[in-house]
């Protein structure tokens, strides 16, 4: 890239009526208004025919001045153009907003009328560049009514434009030559609609029809390359441009995510079909266990007394109490053989066998439907009958309910579940070691063992992990759009 702009000598010169400075004129056929680079006088003249007379004047040159040198030529918008005029514009109602506009004229004289794109201009605001040309597609309005909508979709391109800004401009500085009186532009009412990288704007003079222009966002390096400059010679970009394209594109990531989610769903179905789940259920009665031996004896004695009393009531024998107690003791339902019961447990219960035909997980569900105002703890060991390997889980079930101040309450749960995953194929059973709260009655414990291959949790977790990147890009894209609309009074409503 060259860093030297191309210049050519002007076609003629016009003389400033105030300071007599010679102002270059590249387009004498069309240029009628001039800004003196020396004394800031704005004057009208017809080159080589009519002497200049002052129209207006500006107090001083506004920094930073033109970053593109007037007279330089380059190729923009498909045309070989020359920078002929420079002006600094602002808004009547916002003294802080200030941007620069460059008039572009064809380098080679055009026979007949200007092409439809002209007048062609460059605008720079906060380091963001727009190439402005006449719009060919714009909203239709009746007569000299302005467009009242806040959105418009171009039927030719499908681009949806949203109202970005409206204002009335003021001219703060001008240099070079212009083919219209730029001071007249202070009467214009301007509306801007954004659809990055485009900005559609209407300019409406009083009692006149709107004139529409279409701006296209240019990267600074495009502008620099067009005029043979280096990017460092142009103003640095800051904030977000009204028509700056959002660099955070999410379409690709979302489409790939969609394909992956579809494949994930198909694989889930395939696993469910090829590896169906199987379930076994079992029901046990867990006797309440006293906390120590004395309490156990007391409980056994109480059960025997109760049975004996019932027997006596039936026989009417009040003398043979001891004998009846002994008899009742014998008639008390026997607890399971204590041989397999380890110290500290009431008893060991053994479930039915479940056969895993392939590597799988087992979902164990404990339910004690009659559990009320006490707890039951179950330590369970899933044993592989071929290898003897054990997999242990412990679950506590507790459920309490009552009435307090006229309101019923409950807490806890009568069921609990556990999952043991990554089990090799084989026959398994569950050894249960239940412990119930002392002083409560027998508790029914229902057990369900379910063989699993796929888990909804696996599906959800992997789906969430897969969505991290598109979500991240989505958030960054949203943040970029928010920063864009911070500069507008017409930001889309967010909930």
């Amino acid at each position, binding site marked *: 890239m060259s860093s030297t702009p191309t210049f050519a000598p002007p076609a003629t010169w016009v003389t400033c009526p105030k300071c007599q400075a010679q102002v270059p004129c590249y387009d004498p056929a069309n240029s009628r208004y001039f800004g003196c680079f020396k004394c800031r006088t704005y004057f009208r003249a017809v080159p080589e025919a009519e002497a200049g007379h002052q129209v207006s004047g500006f107090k001083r040159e506004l920094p930073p001045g033109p970053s593109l040198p007037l007279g330089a030529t380059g190729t923009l918008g498909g045309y070989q153009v020359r920078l002929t005029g420079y002006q600094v514009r602002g808004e009547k109602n916002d003294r802080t907003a200030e941007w620069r506009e460059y008039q572009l004229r064809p380098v080679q004289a055009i026979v007949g009328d200007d092409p439809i794109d002209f007048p062609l201009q460059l605008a720079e605001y906060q380091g963001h560049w727009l190439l402005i040309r006449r719009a060919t597609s714009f909203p239709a309005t009746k007569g000299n009514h302005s467009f009242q909508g806040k959105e418009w979709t171009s039927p030719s391109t499908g681009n949806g434009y949203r109202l970005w800004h409206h204002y009335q401009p003021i001219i703060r500085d001008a240099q070079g030559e212009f083919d219209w009186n730029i001071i007249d532009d202070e009467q214009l009412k301007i509306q801007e609609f954004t659809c990055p990288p485009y900005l559609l704007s209407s300019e409406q003079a009083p009692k006149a029809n709107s004139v529409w222009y279409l701006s296209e966002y240019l990267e600074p390096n495009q502008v620099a390359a067009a005029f043979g400059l280096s990017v460092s010679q142009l103003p640095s970009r800051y904030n977000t441009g009204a028509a700056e394209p959002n660099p955070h594109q999410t379409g690709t990531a979302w489409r790939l995510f969609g394909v992956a989610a579809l494949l994930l769903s198909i694989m889930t179905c395939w696993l469910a079909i090829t590896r169906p789940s199987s379930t076994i259920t079992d029901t046990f009665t867990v006797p309440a266990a006293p906390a120590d031996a004395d309490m156990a004896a007391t409980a056994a004695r109480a059960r025997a007394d109760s049975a004996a009393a019932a027997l006596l009531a039936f026989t009417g024998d009040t003398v043979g109490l001891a004998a009846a107690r002994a008899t009742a003791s014998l008639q008390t339902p026997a607890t399971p053989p204590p041989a397999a019961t380890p110290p500290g447990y009431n008893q060991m219960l053994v479930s039915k066998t479940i056969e895993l035909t392939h590597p799988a997980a087992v979902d164990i569900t404990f339910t004690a439907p009659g559990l009320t105002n006490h707890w039951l703890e179950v330590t369970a060991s899933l044993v592989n009958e071929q290898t003897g390997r*054990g997999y242990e889980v412990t679950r506590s079930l507790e459920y309490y309910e009552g009435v307090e101040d006229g309101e019923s309450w409950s807490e806890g749960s009568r069921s609990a579940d556990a999952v043991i995953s990554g089990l090799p194929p084989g026959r398994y059973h569950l050894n249960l070691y239940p412990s119930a709260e002392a002083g409560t009655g027998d508790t029914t414990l229902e057990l369900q063992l379910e063989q699993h291959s796929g888990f909804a949790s696996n599906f959800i977790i992997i789906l969430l992990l897969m969505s991290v990147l598109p979500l991240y890009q989505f958030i960054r894209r949203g943040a970029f759009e928010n920063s864009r609309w911070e500069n507008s009074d017409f930001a889309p409503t967010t909930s």
Partner: protein
Amino acid sequence: MFPLFRDLGADLRRSPFYAGLLGLGLAGFVVLGLRGGRLLGDDNETTEAEQQAGPRRAGGHGGYVHGFNHK
């Protein structure tokens, strides 16, 4: 569904790194499914050594559920 696949080739070329991550995720899901594995929430309390030697007994509301080796 069709738009997902219409630009698939271009999307894969545009985001090869993300496409690779998605492939890994899919492969991981299948391997987990084939092995009966679960990413989160396995409740097995037995360590590998204990699986060989028999389960540890612990826990219980007074801590009295202990000391048993079922083998």
